[in-house]
C-alpha cells in the first residue's frame, strides 16, 4: 500500500503493509531510527513524534492514518550538525545515560517549550508524564528542561 507523507519537511514515500504502525514505517521503511521502539503500547514515549504539530506516540498511529499528513521527528531538530538547544541542555545537564529514551524526551521537551516558556515543575512533570526513563531518576531531565528554557529565552531576546 502506498504511503506518502511530508516528513521533516520532505515528501517521502514507501510501499507499506496497511497494518503497519507509523513507528515501524519511520524506522524500517524510511530509515529514520531516531524514534525508538520500546514498549509498542504507548507506555514509554520513546517513539514520540509530531503528527500535524500534535505530540503522539508513533507506535499507536496506524501509518496510513498519517498518509498525506505532516510528520516531524527527532531527526528534524538538529540543523546542519548543530544540536537543538534542548539536545545541548540534555548533554550538559547529564540527562542522558543509556540514551534510549532520550529522543522521545527531547521531542516532548521541545513541544513543551514551544508552547510554554518558564514552565513550572508541575507543568514539566505533566508534559513529560508519558515518557519513561529508567536511568536518570528524572532529576537531571528536569534540570535540562530548565537549562534549555533559559537558553531559548535568551536566544529569543
Amino acid at each position, binding site marked *: 500500500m502506498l504511503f506518502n507523507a511530508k516528513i521533516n519537511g520532505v515528501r517521502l514515500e514507501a510501499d507499506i503493509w496497511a497494518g503497519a504502525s507509523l513507528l515501524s514505517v519511520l524506522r524500517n521503511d524510511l530509515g529514520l531510527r531516531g524514534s525508538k521502539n520500546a514498549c509498542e*503500547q504507548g507506555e514509554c514515549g520513546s517513539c514520540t513524534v509530531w503528527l500535524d504539530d*500534535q*505530540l*503522539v506516540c508513533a507506535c499507536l498511529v*496506524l501509518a*496510513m492514518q498519517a498518509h498525506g499528513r505532516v510528520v516531524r521527528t527527532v531527526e528534524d531538530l538538529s540543523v546542519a550538525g548543530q544540536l537543538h538547544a534542548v539536545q545541548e541542555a540534555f548533554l550538559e545537564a547529564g540527562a542522558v545515560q543509556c540514551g534510549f529514551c532520550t529522543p522521545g524526551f527531547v521531542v516532548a521537551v521541545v513541544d513543551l517549550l514551544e508552547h510554554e516558556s518558564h514552565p513550572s515543575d508541575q507543568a514539566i512533570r505533566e508534559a513529560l*508524564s*508519558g515518557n519513561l526513563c529508567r536511568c536518570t531518576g528524572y532529576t537531571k531531565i528536569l534540570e535540562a528542561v530548565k537549562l534549555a528554557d533559559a537558553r531559548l529565552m535568551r536566544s529569543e531576546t
Partner: protein
Amino acid sequence: MRLTCFVDKSNLRIVKQSRSWQQGWLRVHLTSAELDSCRAVPLFLRSDGLEFEMRRTVEKGRSMQLEPTGECAGGFEDSAMDFFAPSTLEEALAIRAQRPEAVVIAGGTDVMVAMNFGKLRPPAMLDISRVEALRQWYQEDGWFFLGSGVTYSTVVEQLTRFEPLVQACRAVGSPQIRNTGTIGGNVGTASPAGDALPVLAAYDAEIVLASSRRGRRSIPWDRFLLGVKRTDLKPDELIVGIRWRPTQGPGSFSKVGTRNAMVIAVASLCLVVDKASRSVRVSLGSVGPTVIRARKAETFAAGVFPWAYPRALLSEDVLEHFATIVADAVRPIDDVRGSAVYRRQCCRILARRALTWASREWHGQGEGETV
C-alpha cells in the same frame, strides 16, 4: 524467507530452531520450562540477510496460545489487509455495512496495541479519524452532543464548562495518548476502567449510533455498556457521539491509581449535583464489569444536600453514611491493580471527598442566596 529467533535472556537458551513461515505468521516454539522462569519473554526476530528486527513479548499466563500447543503466533508482517479511510460519515457507514469484519480505528490507542502485539490481524481496517462530522460538538434541543472522534486533549482544552469530564479526560494516559485517544474509543472499548465512562453515566448520557440502513438511534449508556468490553454496537453501526442534558451545579471526577499519569484506574468516582432537578448522581468505575450508579446513595445525598441552605455544611455522620452506602453499591474484584477490599475502601474515601467538595462549592456559589 528464513527467520532466526532468539530469546533475550542470557540465562535462557534458544529453545528450538524450528519455525515455519506461513501466511505472514511466524510460529515460535518454546518449552514450558522456559516460560516458568520468567513472566514475560522478549523475543527478537531477525531475518537472514535483511535488515529487520522486531520485538514481541510473549506474556506468561496470557500465553498467546503458547500453551497447550506450544506455539506462539506472533503475526508480524504482511497479511492481506484492506484499508479504508473515508472522509464523510455516509461513506464510513456504507463501508461499515459492506465490511462488518473491518476493525474500526480512530485514535488507535487501543487498536494499535493489539496490532503491535500480533493479537489483532483483521482482514480490513476502517479508519474514521478523517471524518470531520465525528469531531464536532454542539448544543441542540436541550442536549449537548459530543462527537465520538473528539480527543481527550480537545475536551480538556475546549469543553471546560464540563468540569468532571475535563478532569476525567485529563486523567487519561499521557499527553501523547490524550492527543489521539477519543471519547468514542473510550465508549466503544467499554473497559470497566474507561476514565470518561463514570462521568458519562453521571450525566445520564446517551450513546448516539448510526448505520446506513437503519439511520440513527440513541440509547442510554447503561443499555449500551453491557459488560467487560461488551457493548450493544451492531456490526454495521458506528458510534457517532454521546449526548446529555447539561446539569447545573458542582461536580467532580476522581481516580485512584499508582501514578497521576499513565495509570489504569483502581477505582474512580464521579459525582454530579444538578440544581434544576435537585438530584445528586454518583457513578463508579473499575469496581464492576461496567460503570455502576450508586442509586441508593444518590437518593440519600439528594435528601441531605443543603439545597436551600447553601451555608450549611454536611455533618460527619451524613458524610460517613453516604460513603458507606456508596461503598455498598460496588462490586469490585481482586486483580493485579488492587484487591476488592482495597477498591471498596477507595470508593468510600472518594465518595466522602466528592460530596464534601460539592457541598463546599455549593456553599461558595450559594452564599447569600436562597435557592
